[in-house]
């Protein structure tokens, strides 16, 4: 929960004491303590450490051009990590998120090509179908009462097969046909895959999408009723239902949120490369979960933040590209990722304990 509940007066005796008759919820907490209570604090410290580490070990890491590359790598993970974090705060998993990105790109491309339609039609259809798959996940979960791990594992396998099978059946090969010469492609490219140059740094448009998603998700979590519902269903579903939180609707919407982001990420894939490989995306879902967990999301739900997940994605991007800039053997990358996941989670747990102890 983000709402802090300070019960004891601060040690310096400031503020009304417990016998002063003051309401403890109105206590002023110090800025430091408020920071300590934030779920993303551990990941921010981790990100700073990773940044410093690569700044010292890799000479080309600090170049302006490298900055754009790292941010781009982070954004392609981050766009998905943000809604996955919301879903995890809501206490659920989505293992189909990785291949859903590929599915969304494939639907767009093949629909436009086969019907010789303006590519925007394909983009629209892809949005509807992707949202429907997200809704399917949510409905199956709430109807069957099976764990989300099982439900989305099923979806993941089915989508992996559908991606390959349908693409081969429709296109005759395992990758889609080029749609670069079709109407609407240039404008769609601008929206999903353009880049702007700021002071010599090339910034891909995905970074902008990512920033917007972080802002929207944070606003939802901290400023809306729906945000409270997310924390409530993730913290304790039965209690949430008892106080009138629409649990079913909340969970379905969370899955649709993941689907919406998968659609953005998928369209980016399609319009930056114009041809989609049907076998890709497998394994990415775990990376999104890793980013969210590094960012302070609890695997059990009810705790976490969108900003944290974004920082988690940034750590991922810095590590991913930092290893290249530092000229290390890429075989070690997954080892570092795993070590970082453990360290970040330990740090998060420690920070949380400290925050609770000082209240």
């Amino acid at each position, binding site marked *: 929960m983000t709402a802090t509940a300070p019960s004891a007066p601060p040690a310096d005796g400031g503020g009304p004491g417990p016998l002063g008759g003051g309401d403890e919820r109105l206590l002023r907490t110090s800025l430091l303590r408020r920071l300590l209570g934030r779920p993303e604090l551990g990941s921010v410290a981790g990100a700073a450490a990773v940044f410093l580490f690569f700044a010292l070990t890799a000479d080309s890491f600090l170049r302006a051009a490298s900055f754009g590359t790292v941010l781009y790598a982070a954004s392609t993970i981050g766009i998905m990590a943000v809604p996955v974090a919301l879903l995890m705060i809501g206490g659920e998993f989505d293992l189909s998120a990785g291949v859903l990105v590929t599915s969304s790109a494939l639907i767009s491309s093949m629909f436009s090509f086969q019907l010789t339609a303006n590519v925007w039609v394909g983009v629209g259809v892809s949005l509807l179908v992707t949202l429907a798959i997200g809704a399917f996940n949510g409905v199956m979960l709430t109807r069957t009462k099976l764990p989300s791990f099982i439900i989305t594992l099923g979806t993941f396998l089915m989508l992996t097969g559908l991606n390959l099978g349908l693409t081969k059946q429709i296109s005759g090969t395992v990758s889609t046909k080029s749609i670069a010469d079709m109407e609407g492609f240039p404008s769609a490219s601008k929206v999903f895959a353009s880049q702007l140059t700021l002071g010599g740094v090339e910034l891909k448009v995905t970074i902008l999408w990512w920033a917007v998603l972080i802002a929207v998700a944070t606003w939802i979590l901290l400023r809306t009723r729906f945000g409270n519902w997310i924390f409530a269903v993730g913290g304790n579903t039965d209690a949430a239902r008892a106080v009138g939180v629409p649990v079913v609707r909340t969970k379905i919407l969370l899955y649709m949120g993941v689907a919406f982001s998968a659609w953005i990420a998928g369209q980016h894939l399609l319009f930056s490369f114009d*041809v989609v490989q049907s076998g890709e995306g497998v394994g990415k879902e775990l990376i999104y979960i890793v980013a969210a967990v590094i960012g302070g999301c609890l695997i059990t739900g009810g705790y976490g933040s969108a900003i944290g997940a974004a920082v988690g994605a940034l750590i991922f991007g810095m590590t991913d590209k930092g290893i290249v800039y530092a000229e290390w053997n890429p075989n070690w990358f997954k080892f570092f990722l795993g070590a970082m996941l453990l360290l970040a989670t330990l740090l998060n747990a420690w920070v949380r304990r400290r925050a609770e102890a000082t209240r």
Partner: protein
Amino acid sequence: MATVRTGVRATGAVLAVALGAMALAGCSSTGGKRAEDRARDAAAQGRAAVNTPEWTVAMVTHSGDGDSFWDIVQEGAKQAAVKDNIKFLYAYSDEGQQQAQLVQSYIDKKVDGLIVTLAKPDAMKAVVEKAVKAGIPVITVNSGTEESKAYGALTHIGQDETIAGEAVGDELDQRGKKKALCVIHEQGNVGHEARCAGAKKTFGGSLENLYVDGTSMPDVQASIEAKLQSDKSIDSVVTLGAPFADAAVKAKASAGSKAEIDTFDLNAKVAAALKAGTLGFAVDQQPYLQGYEAVDLLWLYRYNADVLGGGRPVLTGPQIITGAEAGALEKYTERGTR
């Protein structure tokens, strides 16, 4: 409690002594790490043979994690890099988007030369063109015969998958085969599809594709086994990678089939099996050459503006290897260069 603790300590002591004794007494006079080290010492000492400045060359491939084929390519590249006084960097990813990002990282690093694979040409197009525009010479290897020139690369070094497939079809005909199975272990790999399609084109008999999950060997073996059991008329199985030939041989044995197993690519096991006659033939594309030549050609371009191939791909395969040639290649496969 105390007895338990002394028991543990005693066991530990016994184990330590036993291990030491084994290490001393149990020396193998053949094979093992020592033989490998001796062979390496006997080989040429790694020293640059040129006095050009130390250029940096980076290679970015579409390899997955822990792929033996790409190990051999790297081996060749490293050998050439030592000789040409070049600093060699390597990175890989089997996702198109990731691979493009890695190339971008090396452009940021301002390397002196780039070697890329174009297994996912559309994903790589923009970033390869960017490298060329930034004045970095690019050589494509292994995959991308069609696209290499259009993207602005100097040369393409590799095997044309369709031509390689056609060579397999011809070889199967020569061996009098009638019904073949083409085992594709990576769904979604365009090169694999091209190999099987090429074989189908030139093969006089019938050929069908079998899709298996290459990330799980037991699954590969079970799938081939089931296929061989259900169709006794299959007289040849073609696998698309050296590790899969071994699985096919096992599947053949347990299915009680008479089919001949043939494969793309070499490794130590395949060479030994060719020599023993358990495999019919292998189609080699000489991965060592792909790495070695790519680095060497970049050096030549930097040093002397030389470009090889005259605008056409430089082919490193297909080279059909049968039991007769396999013996000579065995020691090369063991040291990881064939």
